[in-house]
């Protein structure tokens, strides 16, 4: 009998085992949902799959009576737009400021401690300030994501830049590189895959800030819908919405991972 640490599943078994927890949780849900509905056919907490399916059909493929929108897609589009804008702006800030801090000692001593302090402010605590300062529009929601995500990316990229072997930086100088050339030919190209890593790690918190902002002041969006229908205990909307958000998040993460390995084959995976 080999040691446990040396026993490895085959390919098929690995796929089956990785599906197991998902299947298990679906079974547990189906069992309890059925048990509760037998007790009380009007139960709303664990709706039957058929109820969820018909509700989602209504949301995704039938026009809303009041607005004439397909709510599911309007919500998805609104949320994704905010999330993408927030992440894009954060990436630009993170890359430019982080790289500058990592490369220029004067800038490092001037603003690195400030960014460190900034990144420790709980973004949700200043959400009211945002609403007061920039109003309840799109800007407030996107800004919340930026405030929550950008400082972390800045710090991460500053550290990654400083981690580049000093041999490389010295070598580039002996090849005659100016500071600017060093940045665009040596440092920046090596920071792109690091930026993707940082974005992947930030996805979770970006969604968190988005949903928090939408829950408080919004008229559409995935987070808005969840918090709206909560009043009616509409688990047949909340549960599929949560699953959908998870799927979107997973897909984004996967796309970023593929982009990294395709665009930067020289960079070892994290």
């Amino acid at each position, binding site marked *: 009998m080999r040691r446990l640490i040396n026993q490895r599943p085959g390919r098929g078994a690995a796929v089956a085992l990785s599906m197991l927890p998902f299947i298990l949780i679906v079974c547990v849900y189906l069992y309890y949902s059925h048990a509760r509905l037998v007790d009380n056919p009007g139960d709303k907490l664990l709706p039957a799959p058929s109820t969820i399916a018909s509700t989602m059909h209504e949301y995704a493929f039938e026009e809303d009576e009041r607005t004439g929108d397909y709510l599911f897609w309007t919500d998805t589009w609104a949320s994704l737009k905010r999330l993408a804008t927030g992440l894009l702006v954060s990436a630009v800030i993170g890359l430019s400021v982080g790289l500058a801090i990592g490369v220029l000692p004067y800038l490092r001593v001037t603003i690195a401690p400030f960014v460190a302090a900034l990144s420790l402010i709980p973004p949700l605590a200043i959400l009211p300030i945002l609403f007061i300062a920039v109003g309840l529009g799109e800007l407030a929601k996107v800004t919340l994501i930026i405030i929550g995500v950008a400082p972390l990316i800045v710090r991460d990229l500053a550290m990654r830049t400083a981690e580049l072997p000093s041999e*490389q930086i010295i070598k580039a100088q002996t090849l005659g590189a100016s500071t600017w*050339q060093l940045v665009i*030919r040596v440092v920046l*190209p090596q920071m792109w895959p690091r930026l993707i890593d940082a974005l992947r790690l930030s996805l979770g918190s970006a969604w968190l800030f988005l949903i928090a902002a939408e829950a408080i002041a919004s008229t559409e969006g995935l987070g808005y819908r969840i918090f709206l229908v909560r009043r009616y205990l509409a688990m047949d909307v909340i549960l599929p919405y949560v699953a959908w958000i998870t799927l979107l998040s997973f897909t984004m993460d996967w796309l970023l991972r593929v982009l990294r390995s395709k665009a930067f084959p020289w960079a070892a995976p994290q």
Partner: protein
Amino acid sequence: MTQITVKHLWKEFGNQVVLENVNLHVGDHEFVTIVGASGCGKTTFLKMLLGIESPSRGTFLIDGEPLPSEPGPDRGIVFQRYSLFPHLTVIKNLLLGLELRDARAVGRLFGMARRRALDKAHELLDAIGLGGAADKYPAQLSGGMQQRLSIAQSVICEPKILLLDEPFGALDPGITADMHALILKLWNMNKMTIFMVTHDLQESFALGTRLLVFDKTRVDPQAPEAFGATITFNIPLKGHRSG
């Protein structure tokens, strides 16, 4: 013509004396090999030549000018490791020096200028026997190939001085003979002055036109940091100068 003059050079870090009273004159197209025990200031001496350390006292002149305070294109360097750019293919690693020199604003060459630079890079690549690996990334090369590329990368812009910091220390003994032939070939081709720090005494005799031994002449057992090392032997050698 490159002349290097060192007079009464001292280097201290706080209380610790690393180098004391170093005197040296190196003429043009010399191959200087430097040996000595660990912590005897060999690398510190090389770092001063490179421009990332400065002398505490004394004079250190290259062609009559004081040492620059930062690395520059007249002094190439090959480290033991990490001196290739992992995001560039082999040929682009070689091209980089030419691009940095000739395209000050964008660091990239285009059109005719790029083709000319590529020709030069390919020529050098063939000379170091890496012609077949042009489109690989450094991580896909063996240690010996990486070092050959690193040396070629440093000489493509024809520096006056080439500094080698234990360049073959991490390689298999079997391939060092090839590396020695390569470095001598490039040295004679470009007529530069080479400073090479090594641990291998045999290598230092085989390659150099001048061998420097760094050692401490005085040791205080109560305060090992009180005295620094200096050049205890400065031996002219036959070398392999051609032409």
